[in-house]
Structure formats: structure tokens, C-alpha cells
């Protein structure tokens, strides 16, 4: 039990510290690398909660895909390091207000879950962890997601699809002069339509 507590504070401390570094560091590439560290420690926290499926998905989706794209973009763009920090003072109050609201909401939600769990368990335990059962948490998650929240799940998928189509239509340009490879055409070519044998008379050459 003590080990779990130590692990929790370890992960949580690194998570918060690297999150602070993400917004304060000057080099954007370093920021992204610390963002990855923060994701990792969040995954560690999920493992401590016994939600190993969510932990792994967090690593696969956020660290393995989203952060790679971040890193890609940040490395490719030559971001002006000084200009990025210019508005820092100006945006600080607004950012602070947003942070405060989010924190308040989190605390409220935490108390709400605690109260609900307390009622359910007869006020015996305030744990957020669902009661142990024979099902793995992947199966439990699937049961809830595909039955109770089916419509919400599907609409989340649709929203992502719309976002993807939007991104493609915004960036797709047809250049008339760019030659593209058409694999179907290439495969469909045969010797009859492309090669012809000509008897060439000497001194006359081949006429088209």
C-alpha cells in the first residue's frame, strides 16, 4: 500500500513538473519532449488505478501518434523562439482564469464521484476504483461503451471523420502539371498497345 502511494506521488510529481516545463521552456522541441513525459506519467497513474487498458491506449494514441505529429510539425517549422514568448505577460491573466475554472471543475467532479461512490458502497469506501469483478477492465469498458453510450460513441467517430474530411479538403490541391503515377494504367499496359516491330530500311529511319 505504501509502495502504491509512493508510486502515485512519484508519477504525479513528474507529471506536474513536466507539464510546467512544457509551457515555460524556450525551445519548442524540448516542450514537446516534456509533453511526452507528462503523457507517460499520466499513463502510469492510470496503471496505478488498475485501468491498464486506458493507460495503454493513452500511450498508443497520444504518445505514439499525436505527439509524433506535434514533434514533426515543431521540427519542420522554424519557430521564432523570441516572438513566441512575447505575448506571455499579456495572456497570463486569461490563461490563469481558464486554469482556475478547470481546477474548480475538477475538484467539483472529484467530490461528486466520491459522493456517488460513497452512496453506492454504503459510505464505506470513497475509492474511485470500480468494484472488482471477474471481467478485465477492457471488457468492462467495452460493455459500457457499446451498450449504454453507443450513440455518443458513434457520433464521436462521425465528428472525427468530419474533421478528417475537412483537413483533407483544405489541403488538397490539384496541380495540373504534376505527373502522377497511375498504377492501374501501368498494370493494364501490354506489349500490343505499346510496342510495334518495324522493318527499317537503311537510310530512311522510322516514320511515326
Amino acid at each position, binding site marked *: 500500500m505504501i509502495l502504491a502511494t509512493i508510486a502515485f506521488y512519484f508519477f504525479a510529481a513528474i507529471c506536474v513538473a513536466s507539464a510546467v516545463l512544457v509551457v515555460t521552456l524556450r525551445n519548442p522541441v524540448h516542450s514537446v519532449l516534456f509533453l511526452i513525459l507528462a503523457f507517460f506519467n499520466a499513463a502510469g497513474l492510470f496503471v496505478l488505478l488498475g485501468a491498464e487498458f486506458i493507460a495503454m491506449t493513452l*500511450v498508443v494514441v497520444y504518445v505514439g501518434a499525436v505527439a509524433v505529429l506535434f*514533434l*514533426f510539425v515543431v*521540427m519542420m517549422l522554424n519557430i521564432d523562439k523570441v516572438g513566441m514568448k512575447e505575448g506571455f505577460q499579456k495572456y497570463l491573466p486569461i490563461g490563469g482564469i481558464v486554469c482556475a475554472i478547470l481546477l474548480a471543475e475538477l475538484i467539483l467532479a472529484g467530490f461528486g464521484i466520491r459522493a456517488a461512490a460513497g452512496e453506492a458502497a454504503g459510505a464505506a469506501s470513497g475509492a474511485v476504483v470500480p468494484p472488482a469483478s471477474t471481467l478485465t477492465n477492457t471488457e468492462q469498458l467495452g460493455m459500457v461503451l457499446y451498450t449504454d453510450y453507443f450513440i455518443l460513441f458513434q457520433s464521436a467517430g462521425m465528428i472525427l471523420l468530419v474533421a478528417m474530411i475537412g483537413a483533407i479538403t483544405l489541403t488538397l490541391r490539384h496541380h495540373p502539371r504534376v505527373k502522377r*503515377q497511375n498504377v492501374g494504367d501501368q498494370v493494364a499496359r501490354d506489349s500490343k498497345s505499346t510496342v510495334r516491330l518495324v522493318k527499317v530500311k537503311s537510310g530512311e529511319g522510322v516514320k511515326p
Partner: protein
Amino acid sequence: MVNSLMQSGFNSFFATAIDLVAKIMLIIVPLLVAMAYLTYAERKVLAASQHRRGPNVVGPFGLLQPLADGLKLLMKETIVPSGANRFLFLIAPMVTFILALVAWAVIPFDQGMVLSNLNVGILYIFAISSLGVYGIIVAGWASNSRYSFLGALRSAAQMVSYEVSIGLVLITVLLCAGSMNLSAIVEAQRKIWYIVPLFPMFVIFFISGLAETNRSPFDLPEGESELVGGYFTEYSAMSFALFYLGEYMNMILVAAMTAVLFLGGWLSPLESLEFIPGPIWLFAKMALVLFLFLWVRATVPRYRYDQLMRLGWKVFLPFTLFYLVLVAGVLVGMGWLPV
């Protein structure tokens, strides 16, 4: 009493720690040896397919060649290019190497013979292999060199693209097995190895594995004719060796994954051959897959980059998606869905 309780607690803690370290060593040491001799096997297989002899000077049949190579790399000087980000430059090969090792924690060698019998084993491996790209991209950026950076960008795009189809292949397998635990997946293949019903998926997994480990014909990130050495152009000595070792370790990992997911892991192909212990079967299957890797390298020319992307996104992704739905439909329709 409290004192003695704490004493016994500490003792048991140390006992588990020593037990764990011993088990980890038992996995890592043979793995390092296997990896060293995979380089030897690669050179021999390439030589054989090109009518050469390969390494045959150091030791009998050249068997000590990997050790000589390792010693040579150890003795060399590590050069950090000027303008490179020193910390990231040195940590990138370590990240590659450590990630290649960490994934082995969940590979089952026999019934119950696994370091960590994780419930989400398959996802764990998927997560770890998706992190492999960081070693490469960080190396390319920290080197402060055009060649390295271009190689790293290529590699990142390639790995992200092929991960998608690998993910769908994994989903198909776990749909058939009804579990994400690798031991359970092997057990589910007692009736029939998944290579038979899922043969197209096996082929796609193998090809995607080639792309994921940057092996030829998909070795564009290190295409020497255009990018010198790709992302490890600037690396030398041990930092170079760690990249190299990481690459071979990843190859062995993909071979192990193929054996576990499609070739029945530690199961023997015939009932009458069951006296041979499971790990030997697993190693034999891995050796077969690794030979395929080397064979492909010796025969297939390198892909063009746009063709590589086309294959990943326009061929493999739709096909795996279709096959996944097909498999799900068959399982539901025939009532074969594992409970």
C-alpha cells in the same frame, strides 16, 4: 514483533527483487547473444545468396566475428558533432535500445514462462513499438545534419503509416482469440494456428513488420544512395552500435510476435512431437521468420518512397479493414465468437 515483521517484509521484498532481476537477466542475456549472431547469420545468408562465403576468418567458420565487431565498436571514439544537442544526441540511441528490450517482458516462451503475464499484453507491445519512432526522430533532430533529419522524417512517417495496418491485424487476431493476453492467444491456437484462417493478415503483418523495423525493401530512412546513413549518419562507436543493436532486437521482436500471433507460439505442430520443449518450438519458428527477413533483404530491391506510402495507406489499410470486418462477420455468423 513489529521489527521482525518489517524484517521479514524486507527479506521477501529483496527476494522478489533478486528473483525478478534473475528472470530479466535470463531473458536479456540470450537475447543479446541471439542478436549478435543474427548479424552473423545475416552476413552468411546474404553471402550465400550472392555466391560468396561471408565472414570466415575470425574463429571457426567466422563464428567469433560478431564479438570482434562489438569489440571494435567499443574501442572507437564517440564523436558528437558541433552544433548538436549533446543530451538528446546521446540519449536517442539509448531510448531505441531500451525500448527494444522492454517489449520482451510480455513475450511468453512456454506455458506460464513469461516475465509479466499482462492482461493487455498485445496492447503493451503495440504501445512500446509505437514509441520506437522517438529514438529515431530525436536522433535525426539532435544531430543537426540535413541527412540525419531527412532520414528521421522519412522514418517517422513510415513507422506511423504502417502502425495503422499492424493495429488492425492485431485487432483481427485478438478478435479470434478473445483475449489480449499473449499466453491466452497462444492457447487459443491449439486447434488451428492462425496462419491458416488469417493467412492474408500474416502476410500483411510480415510486410508491415519489415517496414516498421526499417528493413529492406523499406529501408529508405537509411537509404545510403540518397541519405548517406539516414538518421544515424552522425553516430559513431557505441552510440552507433546501440542503434544497430536496437534494429536487430526489433527484428527479433517482430519474429517473436509473428510466432506468437500466427504460428502458435510454443505449441508443437504435431501431437507426436510434443516431447520437444515449448521454448525450442518458439525459437525454431522465430528463426524461420528471421530467415525470411534476411531472404527478403537479399532478393527485393528498395521501394520508392511514394510507392511505400501508397502501399501502406491505399492497399494495406483498406484491405486489413475489410478483412477485419469479414472475420468479425464470420465469427458472429458461425457462432465461433470466443466468450
